[in-house]
């Protein structure tokens, strides 16, 4: 064979042959991402885990599930809680029993009508360990849900099907925000009979129906013309999988994406050259450094306050973060009820930091480790800035760079002094920035990575969860946030602002404040553009 090949070695002929083969290959290849850009085109960084709501434990999967499915409630792009499959619900005075009435006339995309029993079966499926989903906590407040998940019960006694049109939930204790839990993707309602490949061929009630999924390449959806709510204005929505930031920007500039997040390094350029494309919205996401309250000098609140005074957050935000955010004076984002706009952030004051360190018995400083994820370049730069500034007050910081998984494990086990992290909201409520982050029941995997533990804070958080009256609840949130802020379990950095670009041919899109708040129903390609 090789001899034959050698006999015909003629470089020019070979080149011609290569071109011809490539042309043939091109003619026979399928066209995925190369589809004409007439519909809406969004993107995700990675392939979703699945399209099965029970497996939606990450933002990407949650966003895709939101297109195909509905929960009993839902969020809009502003983070407001709206009725969805349930058009009205009632709670008893204590907030411990809820009755959700199903919207009449809703059907799954295969034509089967939605009934209350579907809701119960869907929730039981999420709680069943054999489903191997992993996100059960939004449903654990339901009485008997924990027992069922542990295999101690064959049914969830707190879910009661009231005929075909209503379902009642009895909770283990009052929880004012329970309707918000039900807007999360994992609480979406799926048909009663779910085939084995449901995650690949989903059938929901949502505004979009599933068309195709080429893994790591794209997902395609078509509008669901019989949607119970506002039917999408566009015919199709393609979601491409594009892992690299700068490639996404290039795709957007080439007119092949409807929207794109502005890459960090490009912020000033895009703001200068294309201000009319940009949409900015504060994110429900604190960027912070949890200080392990159980380790060494960080046990002392004065030391933790000193660290807050020693870091020039305003300067880092302006230079390293391109000014894309607002300084944090607490953990509750300023756009949520319960935040306190009057509270001032820790001032940049190295003299005060040194004084506090001396008072705590560390006049010569000490050494700490600051962990960062090697894959998050921006947070890595912030870590370097913090390292340099803490050195000024005598705190020697060693930056430990690990991959995200190793870092997460170390942080959850409490093996780190400090880490640089951000916290994405699951639901737009102050509770999401207090219970997981500071309640002692959440230490480690629950989200409390500073291992902050204060019985008063714990009881106030639980009291707020039980408080049905909204103003009273928000007053409690302010009080809790204030108390925690004083104890300084974090270095409080900032709440980023999301900066996105919308292609000039696109209308009706807005940056959602919560990941599952954008259902793409009002977005369209403008006529004539």
């Amino acid at each position, binding site marked *: 064979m090789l001899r034959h090949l050698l006999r015909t070695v003629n470089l020019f002929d070979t080149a011609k042959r*290569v071109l011809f083969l490539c042309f043939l290959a091109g003619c026979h290849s399928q066209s995925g991402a190369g589809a004409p850009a007439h519909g809406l085109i969004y993107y995700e960084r990675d392939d979703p885990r699945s399209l099965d709501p029970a497996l939606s434990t990450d933002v990407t999967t949650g966003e895709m599930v939101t297109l195909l499915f509905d929960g009993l409630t839902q969020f809009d792009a502003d983070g407001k809680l709206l009725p969805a499959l349930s058009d009205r619900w009632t709670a008893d005075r204590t907030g411990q029993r809820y009755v959700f009435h199903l919207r009449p006339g809703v059907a799954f995309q295969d034509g089967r009508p939605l009934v209350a029993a579907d809701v119960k079966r869907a929730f039981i499926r999420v709680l069943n360990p054999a489903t191997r989903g992993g996100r059960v906590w939004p449903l654990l407040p339901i009485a008997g849900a924990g027992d069922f998940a542990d295999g101690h019960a064959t049914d969830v006694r707190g879910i009661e099907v009231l005929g075909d049109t209503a379902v009642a939930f009895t909770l283990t204790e009052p929880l004012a925000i329970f309707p918000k839990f039900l807007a999360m993707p994992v609480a979406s309602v799926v048909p009663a009979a779910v085939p084995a490949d449901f995650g690949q061929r989903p059938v929901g009630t949502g505004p979009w129906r599933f068309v195709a999924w080429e893994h790591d390449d794209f997902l395609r959806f078509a509008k669901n013309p019989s949607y119970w709510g506002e039917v999408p204005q566009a015919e199709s929505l393609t979601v491409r999988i594009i892992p690299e930031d700068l490639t996404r920007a290039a795709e957007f500039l080439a007119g092949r994406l409807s929207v794109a997040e502005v890459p960090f390094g490009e912020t000033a350029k895009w703001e200068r050259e294309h201000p009319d494309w940009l949409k900015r919205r504060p994110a429900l996401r604190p960027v912070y450094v949890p200080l392990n309250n159980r380790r060494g000098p960080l046990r002392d609140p004065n030391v933790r306050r000193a660290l807050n005074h020693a870091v020039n957050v305003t300067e880092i935000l302006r230079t390293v973060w391109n000014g894309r955010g607002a300084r944090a004076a607490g953990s509750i984002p300023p756009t949520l009820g319960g935040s306190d706009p009057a509270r001032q952030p820790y001032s940049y004051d190295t003299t005060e930091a040194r004084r506090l360190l001396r008072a705590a018995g560390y006049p010569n400083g000490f050494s700490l480790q600051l962990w960062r994820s090697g894959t998050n370049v921006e947070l890595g730069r912030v870590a370097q800035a913090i390292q340099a500034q803490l050195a000024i007050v005598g705190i020697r910081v060693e930056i430990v760079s690990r991959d995200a*998984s190793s870092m997460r494990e170390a942080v959850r086990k409490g093996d780190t002094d400090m880490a640089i992290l951000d916290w994405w909201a699951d639901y737009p409520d102050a509770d999401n920035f207090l219970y997981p982050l500071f309640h002692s029941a959440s230490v480690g995997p*629950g989200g409390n990575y500073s291992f902050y533990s204060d019985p008063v804070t714990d009881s106030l958080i639980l009291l707020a969860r039980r408080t049905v009256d909204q103003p009273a609840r928000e007053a409690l949130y302010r009080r809790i946030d204030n108390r925690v802020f004083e104890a300084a379990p974090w270095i409080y950095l900032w709440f980023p602002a999301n900066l996105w670009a919308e292609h000039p041919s696109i209308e009706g899109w807005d940056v959602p404040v919560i990941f599952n708040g954008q259902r793409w129903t009002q977005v369209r390609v403008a006529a004539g553009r």
Partner: protein
Amino acid sequence: MLQLVGRRLLATIPTLFGVLVVAFLLLNVVPGDPVAEMVGERADSATIARLRGELHLDDPIPVQFGHYLWGVVRGDLGRSYITQRPVLGDLAERFPKTLQLAAAAMLLAVTVGISLGVLAAIRPGGMIDRLSMLIAYLGVSFPVYWVGLLLILLFAVALRWLPPSGYGGLAFLVLPALTLGMRSIAFLARMTRGAMLDVLPSDFVRTARAKGLGERRVIGRHALRNALLPIITVVGLDVGNYLTGSILTETIYSWPGVGRYVLLAIQKRDLPAVQGSILFLSVVFVLVNLLTDVLYAKADPRVAYD
């Protein structure tokens, strides 16, 4: 030759078993928990414990390995913890795409690289030599990541001749193949030039010229053929590397190949996906190496495998 192939194939079995053992042990030693990746940012300890039990992650390591090995023997690489899809199916879906990219890159590298090397060797020190060696230097020196982005900026954003990224027809293949093949072009050009310069002063080349053969025949059939061994070595190694996935190129160009699959599996500590991928890619690598050895023997009868 058949004996050689058969012997080598048999010898791959202990190699692959070794690969499996090492991969399994390494994955159990490195920090990071697959269940933590499954449950996401917020979870309770009870859920994590339940999932660990469900996935048999608390079984002793030899027992886990035994289960896995039994599956492999039956041709079952297991299911991904994260996506719950069969690993073999995932690899089968992505491998043809990696193969397509590797083939295009290699064709490009072989034609351009060998041409440059031959042209450079014909007149050492001449214009073409200097130019092709400059190209070779640049090709070896520039990082793939940087070249990839530059090519996207030039051909996709500025000129709009080609799509920036994605998988599709020929137009989608050009930039990734060029990016991936660039280093091989450079390497092959230098390798070919060196090998040709060794061969060209030989007696048999002078004889070929003396008997009146045209220069193209002298170079193409006599000199190049004798310069092929080192070239085959480089091509073989590169093909092996390309087929096992090119993480950078696939990431920059959003190419849905095995490289990205393996990277994500490692990041998520998706043990069945990582183990399955390592095994699969080891098989590919071993087969490519075997093919290279066979080609050695074909190219030069003096090479004997006893």
